[in-house]
């Protein structure tokens, strides 16, 4: 059954469940689509993923609502919870699944965020994870004290320093700092609580952390940037890379590059898991799956969404164009300010983009909508549950990834079908857990080495001891 012909044991697949996002992947016009904010949606999503023995669930972060051409974008799902708060709530209704949140190193302070992540790890019994992202634009800064000062070049400097200070805080209490000896009256050994005293270009943090080491001591660190700086950060500090290279060949190239970087710094290859984002469409037959894929992609790209995608490049009103017809022949309006705000990618040369799109559409005989579908609603895995499971397994066994971050297209039930139909296929192949290990931390579930033992030098006897 397995694709591996050697005697080497099969690699175990790691899966993450991505809560449906505020973009066009999430179909809200479907009758099964429920509230994007009610706790019942999050509970269902998390408990279903836990039923499917996923390694962790993954949440993006909201810092500001997206805008298109100066107006709040209204065509996709809008609105989501505070990331840390909802993960803490989910800790209360799940027992084994990891809880990973995206949290900006730009619009947070290390003392507070390190404490919140440690809290989440305590509350969940060692299941916390942090997708550390950087943000530099003034658009998001308008909601925060920091405002807009961070230079693009400083993004990873700040992220790295943020992570380093956080680590110092997580490591500053000795494992046995709390004694809680009722008879002697000693609650904490004062020598077991170290003073953190950090002064760097981005942060000045002096003081004591407020928590003893959490079950994992450090949360699992996830990194999602693709730039060389991002890859360097992942090589030095991350446990998981959330990549966008789900395609087999691109995946292998990325996998090779990153694992090679690990070799260079002497980190074991399995200490950093690479999980590309992937969507899926199932069917009883291949033809049925293709048909569903086509239907869903048209729901993901409504006529208005197709026009809006183009308007982000053309930067002008295109509502008069027929989405089932050819692309506009007029050229984009070029201004210093771009069209879309609050999205990961911004088109830097609109004229070139427009030309490329026109050529592509013409060559393929695509309408506006079909063109937009081709890059905004392409499904990674389309087929019967057996074929999807085999494809996922092949990617993992042949080192195109260590697993996937699975993105459903309806909230909150989008992954129910995956759990019902694909997970058992993976389990039958012996490449995916049939249950969690009792009491396992997220580090353990992911098969990561434990966090290196704390350097005792950070625990200095600098504490002031009162009589």
């Amino acid at each position, binding site marked *: 059954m397995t694709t591996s012909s050697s005697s080497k044991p099969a690699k175990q697949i790691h899966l993450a469940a991505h809560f449906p996002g505020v973009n066009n992947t999430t179909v*809200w016009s479907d009758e099964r*689509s429920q509230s994007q*904010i*009610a*706790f019942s949606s999050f509970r269902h999503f998390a408990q279903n993923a836990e039923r499917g023995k996923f390694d962790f669930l993954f949440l993006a972060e*909201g810092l*500001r*609502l997206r805008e298109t051409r100066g107006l*709040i974008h*209204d*065509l*996709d799902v*809008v*609105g*989501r*919870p*505070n990331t*840390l*708060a*909802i993960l*803490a*709530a989910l*800790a*209360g*209704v799940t027992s084994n699944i990891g809880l990973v949140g995206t949290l900006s190193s730009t619009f*947070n*302070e290390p*003392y*507070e965020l390190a*404490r*919140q992540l440690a*809290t989440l790890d*305590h*509350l969940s019994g060692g299941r916390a994870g942090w997708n550390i992202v950087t943000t530099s634009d003034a658009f998001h800064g*308008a*909601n*925060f004290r920091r*405002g807009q000062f961070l230079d693009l070049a400083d993004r990873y400097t700040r992220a790295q320093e943020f992570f380093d200070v956080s680590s110092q805080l997580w490591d500053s209490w000795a494992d046995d700092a*709390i004694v*809680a000896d*009722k008879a002697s*009256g*000693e*609650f*904490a*050994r*004062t020598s077991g*609580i170290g003073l953190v005293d950090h002064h760097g270009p981005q*942060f000045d*943090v*002096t*003081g*004591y952390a*407020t*928590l*003893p080491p959490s079950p994992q001591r450090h949360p699992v660190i996830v990194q999602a940037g693709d730039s060389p700086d991002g890859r360097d950060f992942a090589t030095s500090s991350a446990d998981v890379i959330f990549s966008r290279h789900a395609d087999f060949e691109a995946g292998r190239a990325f996998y090779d590059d990153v694992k090679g970087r690990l070799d260079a710094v002497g980190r074991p290859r399995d200490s950093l898991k690479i999980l590309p984002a992937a969507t899926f469409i199932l069917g009883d037959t291949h033809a049925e799956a293709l048909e569903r894929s086509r239907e869903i992609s048209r729901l993901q790209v*409504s006529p*208005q969404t197709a026009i809006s995608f183009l308007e982000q490049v053309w930067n002008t009103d295109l509502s008069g164009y027929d989405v089932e017809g050819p692309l506009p022949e007029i050229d984009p309006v070029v201004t210093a300010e771009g069209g879309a705000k609050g999205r990961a990618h911004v088109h830097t040369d609109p004229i070139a983009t427009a030309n490329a799109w026109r050529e592509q559409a013409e060559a393929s005989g695509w309408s506006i909508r079909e063109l937009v579908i081709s890059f905004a609603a392409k499904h990674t895995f389309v087929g019967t549950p057996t074929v999807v499971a085999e494809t996922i397994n092949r990617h993992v066994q042949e080192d195109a990834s260590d697993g996937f971050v699975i993105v459903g297209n309806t909230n909150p039930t989008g992954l129910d079908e995956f759990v019902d139909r694909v997970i058992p296929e993976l389990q039958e192949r012996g490449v995916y857990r049939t249950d969690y290990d009792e009491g396992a931390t997220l580090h353990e579930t992911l098969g990561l080495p434990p966090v290196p033992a704390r350097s005792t030098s950070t625990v200095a006897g600098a504490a*002031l*001891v009162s009589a």
Partner: protein
Amino acid sequence: MSHTPFHLGVALDGAGWHPAAWRLDTARPDAVFEADYWVSLVVEAQSAGIDLVTIEDSFGLQTSGFGAVELRRGEVRGRLDALLLANTIAAQVPGIGIVPTVTTTHTEPFHTATGIQTLDHVSEGWAGWRVQVSGRSHEAAHVGRREIPVLDPLRAASGPDEEQTALIRRLFGEAVDAIEVARRLWDSWEDDAVIRDVPTGRFIDRERLHYVDFEGESFSVKGPSIVPRSPQGQPLVFVLAHQQVPYELAVAQADIVGVTPHSDEHLERILGELGDAELRVERRVNDPLRIWTEAVVLIEDTREKAEEALSALDELHGRTYASDAVILADTAENVAAQLLRWQQAGLTGVRLRPARLPLDLERIARGVVPVLDETGVLERPRDASTLRERLGIAPAENRYATARPETTELIESANR
């Protein structure tokens, strides 16, 4: 019988409010960093019909004063983040108000507002926020954004001190702004903003989302919130206040102010000062300010036993425990009698601080509450679906929805 409805809150902190409480056989000091400990406390409170619990917090290790951190060996040190803990509890215990403490001094107002709003979604309408200001210089050093001089209560007590008064005014002014931002963000989505209109392809009606455009001395926030309007619309804002400047904060922005009278005369003076603050400060909340008192409680079968238990704790502590609130070491009946006196004085609730956890929470739940129930002063509508309803606070109007010139728009669109 006509009466002022009276409500009960319980303040949860560590192993109880007496610094030596963790050393008792009944205490679970090793569990204060575990979710289950807190959930079991809140279940106890909820099943007794207590209206809300607050969760203490600070932006750093606990200290006994405003100066440097002392890593006192003999007291519980360390705390979970209260806002996160509140969310974990709320996901498991329905039907009780959950009010975490979050400081306004070093945190991001946007994160705090969305965190409390999320708590309101998770609890399905039972969230509150105990607003706190951090005047501790060591906590400022955790962020390194600004320096806060060491507050010296003795200096402040010895007479007017311009530097300290200015600092206090600045910190509380920032708190007024942080609550203002939160309240605006909480209203920044109208209740019916999600329309899911397939013909036009629109998930929301963006006319029903609003920029808050707040600009203040310490921060500015554009908005709208990332979180859709929550079940209560406006979660409950609780402010503990001991003097003029905090009274003004409470008058301006709080739903409930907690005060700490030590005698009837003291209470009268506090009510007078609050009344004066109402004359000086404009109230920005539609509902009248509710005044609650505070008390540390230690309950035994007889007053003598209670006093002995308190002395024994003080002995373990090495000195007499002093609190900003009155300490009631007494029987459940006598504690209830004191609460009734407060109720008759026109106060609408009390936040009880159990000296020993879980012991005194159990005794409040199983001793004090039944006595009060017999008198009929507790008002607990069984069908209350939110904390606001439970406390008899009117549904929150949305400042943006009411400001929207809907009729004008309708006329205009009819003319187009």
